[in-house]
């Protein structure tokens, strides 16, 4: 249990993001919640690839005969970070346009399809 503390920390981030999504109505805060969930998942992916007493998988000035952590989760986390950035940019652009058209960022008020 206590050895799995990094996984638990990632789940705390995901839980905070879910709570933000459920309890807030501001569109910017919803974007912040989604970004929190993304951060939790990215940290979880990196933590999955950790090997005990491993060094980063880079041979430049690496300590001799050191174990290296798994490179594939790190590569996929890189992909995930870039895709999260793309979705965040799109969400913020939509929030800006919605605020310009409706004058409010409240998700409850802009739910009706009118105008």
């Amino acid at each position, binding site marked *: 249990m206590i050895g799995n503390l990094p996984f638990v920390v990632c789940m705390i981030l995901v839980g905070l993001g879910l709570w933000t999504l459920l309890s807030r109505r501001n569109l910017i805060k919803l974007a912040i919640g989604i970004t929190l969930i993304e951060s939790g998942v990215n940290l979880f992916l990196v933590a999955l690839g950790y090997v005990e007493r491993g060094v980063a998988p880079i041979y430049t000035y690496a300590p001799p005969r050191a174990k290296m952590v798994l490179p594939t989760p790190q590569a996929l986390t890189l992909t995930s970070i870039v895709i999260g*950035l793309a979705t965040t940019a799109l969400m913020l652009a939509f929030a800006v346009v919605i605020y310009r058209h409706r004058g409010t960022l409240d998700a409850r008020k802009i739910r009706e399809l009118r105008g």
Partner: protein
Amino acid sequence: MTVVVRTVARIIAPMILAFGGYVIMHGHLTPGGGFQGGAVAASALALLAISFGFGRWKGIKAPLSFLEDLGALAFVALGFLGIGYTFFRNVLAASGGLFGAPVPPGPNPGLLETGGTLPLMNWAVGLKVIAGLGSVVLLLGLFGGEDDR
């Protein structure tokens, strides 16, 4: 922004750009790569745009979109370079040509001219990320209108 912010931005922005270029250029040797270095360099663009006002940078949009297309096309072309074997085959590695020096096995200080197509792909993706992030920040700021406080 105030003159303090402008002066500090004028001093720091070239350093951030140079560090981004370093991270991209040494992507196959040290932690980093095209995406990370591109994000660092794009933060320099965001700093300049915020401190000097977005309206002044309106003319940079066309070069940025050109850079983005150039990066994407260069990346796909480098992928097609190895189509004789398979897509994304690293044909330049250890061939003795461009970036083709053999790598000493095991931990080593790192040679810049190794890696085959990896440094070129790092540059392509780095240009793409600089242009993409910079144009996103610029578009959001331009849409918000001038608020030069």
